[in-house]
């Protein structure tokens, strides 16, 4: 039941609205704000109009009544002519287009809906901000680019969206570059300089991952050229005819290309070893952190892996280089989940805990998707686990970030040790944040519990025990840092800073325009846990290729789902693990029975571990070392340009001589 041109308009409308922002600004503040939000609202309508199409299996235009095609439906247009490459006297094109299939509609709905909620929240959070034109421009441009990314029908167009969201992310992280307040980081004089630096760091680190993605896209394009006669990047064509995988295997580069393809998601989804940009990205406004670094942009990497998974899975039966790809994905996900969870244990800033938690949960998603590839005919369990956790995580992490934003808005500090005792003053925020933390930890019956159950089941039933153990360790750490965060923020005695704010401004709850999205997200995180079977039905075209049987009836699915989620052995294990994590946190931070600082300082081993974790395993320092080396090398090499004419001419002569010697050598 889609509206006409829905997949195109869903991303075109926000992009065009973004470009027209200066015009809207001239027309008035309300026009500007409401047009920005209105564009996303239209995107939501267009995205959700595609849902029924997926469930019924055909793309049906609601206004003209014509059926455009069956799901998956690829709406292609000819884009760039590249000459007649296969000699059939017909001009060949690289095509562009949009793909209407379960995964893309799933992502479009998540992105546009959560985007809409966050935009509404921004009305309150960014109230009084002088640079709103720039804010709305980049937010709309971001949501448009993200929708372009997930609805693209080929790798090249997806890469357009991929880079565009990278630029938007940079600009939005550095949004408050004009801030003049002094910075806590000794390298920067003002907060503004620090924010600018964080944005640049995010851009550079993700671009580093992207270059490997570009080369793998180029190689895949050429492999299709060799296999089909015409280069194509189209997902449907890549899936239907796997001859190109054969070409890659034939050249011996299949494993490398697939791992390079994964390097893009490593950068964009902040996996190990490129995970250090995400904690610094918390310098941006909290709405930006919620939208980009929790709910949408970092999911782009997971989306790409999920998109490529059925294609590589089909190829894995024939060519065995692909098993390495899935192993790499799963293990990098596992390592990331572990490292980030340990970083989150000792973080001082509220948003940094959430950032580390995001990296850790993204690791979970990669773990699930990687495990899917290694699971033989049970691949669909891992796939469903990864994508369902994507949705659940988007909702509860956005919720947590928005709550954190409300807290920051009230308390004007980002450090948790300067908070405390806010429970009575901010009841709505407390309740919704508690729901979010419970969902994050995997406590039933919230969404996080069901999605983690799916992941554990996927790992357990396929006998991937090493990965299961790592996932289990992270499942212990997650409730610990989540409830540590809740405890430090809302419980305990008020800190000096909070008391000062209470005297000056009073500690008030966030305004309605901010709390309504919080409640919407909280209710969603309670009910989406139970939509697992619906998701399974939604993804049916995809998971039948991954080993699932045909969906018989929804009622049977539901019964099986609920029975399994609440009574299997993985349920028992996960409840035990959650308890191991939860009760110490409850004891230390909520009941405040012991002082954690004292324990750590008295024990040398704990002190050593604390320093290691606080410095994020020194991985961040490594980045700066590498860039320092590059600058040192550049300063040495620049001395070659002495500026003296004789030296320049001598250089020329050396060049000529080298060329002559080269030709002489070639002659021999």
């Amino acid at each position: 039941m889609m509206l006409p041109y829905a997949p195109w308009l869903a991303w075109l409308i926000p992009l065009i609205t973004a470009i027209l922002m200066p015009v809207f600004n001239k027309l008035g503040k309300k026009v500007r704000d409401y047009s920005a939000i209105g564009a996303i609202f239209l995107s939501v309508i267009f995205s959700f109009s595609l849902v029924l199409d997926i469930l019924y299996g055909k793309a049906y235009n609601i206004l003209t009544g014509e059926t455009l095609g069956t799901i998956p439906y690829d709406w292609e247009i000819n884009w760039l002519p590249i000459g007649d490459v296969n000699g059939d006297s017909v001009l060949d094109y690289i095509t562009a287009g949009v793909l209407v299939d379960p995964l893309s509609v799933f992502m479009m709905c998540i992105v546009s809906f959560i985007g809409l909620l966050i935009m509404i929240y921004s009305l309150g959070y960014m109230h009084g901000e002088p640079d709103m034109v720039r804010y709305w421009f980049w937010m709309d441009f971001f949501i448009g680019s993200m929708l372009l990314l997930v609805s693209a029908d080929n790798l090249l167009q997806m890469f357009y969206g991929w880079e565009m969201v990278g630029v938007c992310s940079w600009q939005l992280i550095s949004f408050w570059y004009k801030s003049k307040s002094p910075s806590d980081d000794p390298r920067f004089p003002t907060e503004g300089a620090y924010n600018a630096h964080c944005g640049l760091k995010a851009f550079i680190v993700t671009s580093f991952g992207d270059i490997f993605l570009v080369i793998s896209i180029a190689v895949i394009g050429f492999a299709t050229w060799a296999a089909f006669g015409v280069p194509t990047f189209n997902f449907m064509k890549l899936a239907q005819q796997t001859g190109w995988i054969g070409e890659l295997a034939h050249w011996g580069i299949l494993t490398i290309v697939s791992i390079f393809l994964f390097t893009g998601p490593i950068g964009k989804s902040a996996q190990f070893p490129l995970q250090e940009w995400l904690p610094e990205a918390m310098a941006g406004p909290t709405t930006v952190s919620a939208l980009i670094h929790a709910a949408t942009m970092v999911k782009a990497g997971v989306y790409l892996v999920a998109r490529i998974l059925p294609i590589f899975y089909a190829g894995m039966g024939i060519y065995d280089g692909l098993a390495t790809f899935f192993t790499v994905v799963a293990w990098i996900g596992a390592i990331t989940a572990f490292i980030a969870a340990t970083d989150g244990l000792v973080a001082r800033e509220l948003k940094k805990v959430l950032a580390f938690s995001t990296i850790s949960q993204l690791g979970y998603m990669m773990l699930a998707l990687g495990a899917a590839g290694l699971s033989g005919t049970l691949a669909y369990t891992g796939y469903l686990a990864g994508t369902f956790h994507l949705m659940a995580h988007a909702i509860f992490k956005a919720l947590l970030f928005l709550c954190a934003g409300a807290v920051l808005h009230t308390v004007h500090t980002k450090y948790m040790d300067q908070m405390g005792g806010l429970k009575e003053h901010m009841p709505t925020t407390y309740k919704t944040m508690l729901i979010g933390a419970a969902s994050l930890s995997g406590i039933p019956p919230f969404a996080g519990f069901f999605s983690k159950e799916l992941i554990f089941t996927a790992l357990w039933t396929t006998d991937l025990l090493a990965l299961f153990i790592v996932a289990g360790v992270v499942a212990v750490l997650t409730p610990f840092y989540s409830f540590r965060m809740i405890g430090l923020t809302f419980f305990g005695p008020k800190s000096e800073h909070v008391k000062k704010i209470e005297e000056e401004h009073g500690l008030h709850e966030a305004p309605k325009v901010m709390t309504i999205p919080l409640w919407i997200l909280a209710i969603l995180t309670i009910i989406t846990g139970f939509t697992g079977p619906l998701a399974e039905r939604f993804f049916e075209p995809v998971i039948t290729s991954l080993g699932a049987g045909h969906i018989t009836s929804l009622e049977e699915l539901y019964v099986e789902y609920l029975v399994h989620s609440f009574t299997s052995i993985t349920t028992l294990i996960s409840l035990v693990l959650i308890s191991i994590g939860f009760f110490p946190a409850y004891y230390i931070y909520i009941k405040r029975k012991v002082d954690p600082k004292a324990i750590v300082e008295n024990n040398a081993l704990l002190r050593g571990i604390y320093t290691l974790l606080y410095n994020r395993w020194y991985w961040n320092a490594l980045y700066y070392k590498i860039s320092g080396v590059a600058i040192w090398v550049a300063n040495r090499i620049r001395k070659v340009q002495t500026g003296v004419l004789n030296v320049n001419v001598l250089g020329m002569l050396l060049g000529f001589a080298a060329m002559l010697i080269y030709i002489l050598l070639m002659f021999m």
Partner: protein
Amino acid sequence: MAAIFNLPLITYPILVTACFGILVFLVGHFVRGKYTSKLLGLISSVGLLFTVYFVIEAILSLRNGTLTVLYYYGTPPPIGSCLEVDFLSLAVALLASFLGLMVTIYSIKYMEHDNNLNAYYSLLLFLIAAVIGVAFAGDLLTLFVFYELMGVTSYSLVAFYKEKAEPIEAAIKYLIMGAIGSAVILYAFSLIYGLTGTLNIAYVANYFRSAAPQPFSYVILILLIGGFGVKAAIVPMHSWLIDAHPSAPSGISAMLSGVVIKGGLYAMIRTTVLFFPVSTYMWNYLLATIAIVTIFLANIIAIVQKDLKRLLAYSSIFNIGLIVLAFSLGTEFGLAAGIFHILNHGIMKGLAFMCAGVILHTIGTRNLDEMKGIARKMPVTGVLFAIALLGLAGVPPLSGFMSKFLIIFSAVQLSNTYGYLLAAIALINSIFATLYYAKVIKVIWMDEPGENVANVHEASWVMVLPLALLALLIVIVGIWPQLLYDLAYHAAENLINAQSYINNGM
């Protein structure tokens, strides 16, 4: 139009530009007054509008097949000189005339306080005429004459601010290195003349393609690549560019980086690809080595530059390295990608230099440390500069991404380790390039402004208009690359399959 003077369309761009060059000089010499500078700029712009129109008309009629591609006066080839046109020539001519038009409009405001503007505008027009002449030349003597004219006009334009020491020094270095390059080219031409008895490009191509390789042919190849490489600024003949581009007036920097070095590249490619088929002469490894050295050197030094225009000059050398890398693959797709990047880079670097010029015009310094946060006061220029820099970095949906992607794509087409190595080198250096482009954007937008930025205001619309047009073109070509890529792959087709050029010329 052709019927009026009984001259074919292909002579029009050169003639019109040269006539306007003389006209501007005379008008500037005899008319003194307050508005002379604007008048001169206006006359030049009108002349270049005609030129752009003629070039576009030529492209369209070449598509239909109705263009007379060969023109000679008096003695026919192989003795006489001639003009011969194909898609590659028209692509370079289009770039030269369009960018020249933008620079002229820009210079109306930029140079309004300077003296000797009659010399400036007429030299600029002659420069454009010379580049179009190099592109249209059908025999090597014509090529040489126009090449030297291009050189002389650009030496003089670099030294335009003759009251300061740096432009003079830069111009001297440029001149001497350029003269050595010209002499080497002429030496190669003499050897070609010795071997074949003629200097007509079509005849010489025919000879070289049908004869077996001799030692002299290899020497000629080296001399041609090295000699033209001086103007095209490949390492190690690049040192002049780093000094010349910052010291020239900003419009001229844009012309130099966007057009003059492309003229040198054009000549290098025309002679190398037409004369020496890559399968017998194996020049692809040589060019690839040159390209790799160029890319690495330019990129690494650019990271630590503090002078904005010097940084952009190093970036020009990096992009020349990329284009030579694309050409060195020896395939039709590689040539098309390289020509596409010539067009794209010319537009983006022209825009970048002109925006840097606006900043220089406003605060009088090129040092990155002193222009922090200037885009807050000059938002339009800041946005246009950011578009240019992001395009150069290769960020979609701007045009730079598509041309870089096509270069990578054509490199992996070789499907052996050598091709992958080239693609990897191009990409790794792209990340370095992104580093310093993003750093410049951060400095002009996000750093704390100093005292000297306090009183700046946005530039006048006359200066900003050509910048906006170029930025719009970058965005449009990014979304719809067919606009320029069409020209590029037709040019590549014609070049690889040299028979059509040879047949047209005989």
